[in-house]
């Protein structure tokens, strides 16, 4: 375990301890609190658990895979297609929803039934994660702890950015493959979280010729000449593992395929834009830059 990762864990541990210490302060400050929380959005679930309120979470959506104990909560299904009555059956007093959760009518119906619904702001860049943490804090009556956690997260983020900036040499060209849609790889282009993470970790997005997640032809992939292939580990397994993917004809002919360089990371860690994002950037930077990352102190 590297120093950085230990530090990231310490941040989470400190926040959890802080959550316990501030238990009474938060609830005395007049902010609304919640005893039974349903969360639709994996990033929000991570924040609630990191604030030490995981035991109040009674239901989560499919994207809530971290921390592992979150998966033992009732499953409300897909974040864009939640069932209002299903959520009501969990008798929540607060429903925390991601900016893209839906359908809208479900949340109108929940509010009609007297349940508080709080919709998180969209975190388009890593800096906006702090706003998301603050939002969760104020929704749960834990503003003070959340502010502290957000500050620590921002510090960790800036520290890692500073180290990434010291990396020398040509940035590696990284191709993010979301999945293989009927055979053609679905590439993370610009305007995607994958693109932001690659940039933050000091790489160059080899898929920047497209915008959004788009299928890319075999020749275009060879022309993009990625040095490294990046995938979510869940998807890499589904498509036969890293070895099989590197052996695909369009990948085998690229520098990544020839050098056998591929990185698989947990999807929520890599793309979640949650409290673990500084940790994720550091992990990705180590995978992309190998010994140069060690030299930069990552």
């Amino acid at each position: 375990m590297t120093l950085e990762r230990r530090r990231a864990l310490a941040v989470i541990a400190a926040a959890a301890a802080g959550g316990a210490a501030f238990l009474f302060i938060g609830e005395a400050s007049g902010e609304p609190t919640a005893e039974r929380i349903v969360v639709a959005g994996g990033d929000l679930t991570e924040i609630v658990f990191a604030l030490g309120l995981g035991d109040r979470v009674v239901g989560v959506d499919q994207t809530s895979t971290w921390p592992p104990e979150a998966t033992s909560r009732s499953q409300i299904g897909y974040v864009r297609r939640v069932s209002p009555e299903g959520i009501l059956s969990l008798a929540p007093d607060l429903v925390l929803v991601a900016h893209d959760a839906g359908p809208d009518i479900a949340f109108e119906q929940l509010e009609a039934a007297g349940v508080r619904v709080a919709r998180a702001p969209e975190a388009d860049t890593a800096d906006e994660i702090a706003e998301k943490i603050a939002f969760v804090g104020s929704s749960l009556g834990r503003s003070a702890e959340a502010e502290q956690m957000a500050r620590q997260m921002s510090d960790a983020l800036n520290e890692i950015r500073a180290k990434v900036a010291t990396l020398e040499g040509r940035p590696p060209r990284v191709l993010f493959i979301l999945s293989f849609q009927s055979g053609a790889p679905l590439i993370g282009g610009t305007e995607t979280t994958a693109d932001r993470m690659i940039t933050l970790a000091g790489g160059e997005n080899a898929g920047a010729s497209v915008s959004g997640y788009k299928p890319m032809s075999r020749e275009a992939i060879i022309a993009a000449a990625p040095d490294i292939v990046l995938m979510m580990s869940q998807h890499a397994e589904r498509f036969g593992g890293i070895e099989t993917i590197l052996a695909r004809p369009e990948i085998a002919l690229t520098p990544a395929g020839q050098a056998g360089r591929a990185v698989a990371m947990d999807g929520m860690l890599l793309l979640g834009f949650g409290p673990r994002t500084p940790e994720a950037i550091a992990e990705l930077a180590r995978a992309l830059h190998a010994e140069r990352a060690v030299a930069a102190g990552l």
Partner: protein
Amino acid sequence: MEAAIEARRRLRVPTIAGLSLLVVGLALAGLALGPVDIAPSRVIATLAGGGSAAESAIIWQIRLPRIVLGLATGAALAVAGAALQGVLRNPLADPGLIGVTGGASLGAVATIVLGSTIAGQLPEPIRPWLLPIAAFLGAALVIAFVFALARRGGETSVATLILAGVAVNAIAGAAIGAFVYVSDDSQLRDLTFWTMGALGGAGWPLVLVAACLVSIALPALLGRARDLDLFQLGERAAFHAGLDIERSKRVIGLSVAVAVGGVTAAAGPIGFIGLVAPHLVRLAIGPRHALLLPASALTGMALVLAADLAVRLAVPPAEPPIGLATSLIGGPFFLWLLLRGGRGRYA
């Protein structure tokens, strides 16, 4: 053969009565059952206006609109399917075949992908209506186009109608594909789920509009039962029997567009009902349209309500798409009827 017809005739009254009871039973079950346990006495109290805020919201805002939309959707799709199968004399006809569903889907998908650009220029109250209006217009335009294309020298050719429908479906499919390609991640997820259909996504205003459209179009279709019987003899024979076949085709086409466009706009494309409900009824009580149409409506309602109950209760608090359940419930049942009835009887 005579005996078989006689047996079916004897089945008619019990079948209609049984189906009506089944629909009423399923509607009551739809009110009483859900992931949240509400005792039947509380359901009645809530309907009488005496429930708590949460109970009222669940019964009035969540369960009741779903049931109304389920009834409208089941009836519209099944009767539209029966009428199209009759007028086109094609057992494979359903609202999807002549492109109605494809047109509605294209309208909806276009709204999901381009909506944010267009919606910004529209006044606030209209925005939530954009998708249903686009879906309805898509369905209506396709029907108008297909019927206009099939009309040559004052006559509507059934073969051209079906082929034009196939072509329109292909074009709509390609256009949807293009929208899928340019859509971003969240739009893509929206439209994937829209194309699976759902009764839970519509609130009262939309449900009532859909129900109104269906209640305008259904009587028009039910009133054409004799025309549809005559169409079975062939268009020439129907014409010589005194039927204004052109007018009849236009009324049926327009009514199908209104009914299917209305429910597809509110619930998304729900497959299978329009194709199979009429066949289920024909197997049970024969092809006479005066009975086939209302019995199809009841069968369609029962199938949709049963499917909706199934998805609601299967894995709470989550809810799978209803399209999965309509096929899972209806498919095996249909196969069972086919096998039980013997292959010779049904051609």
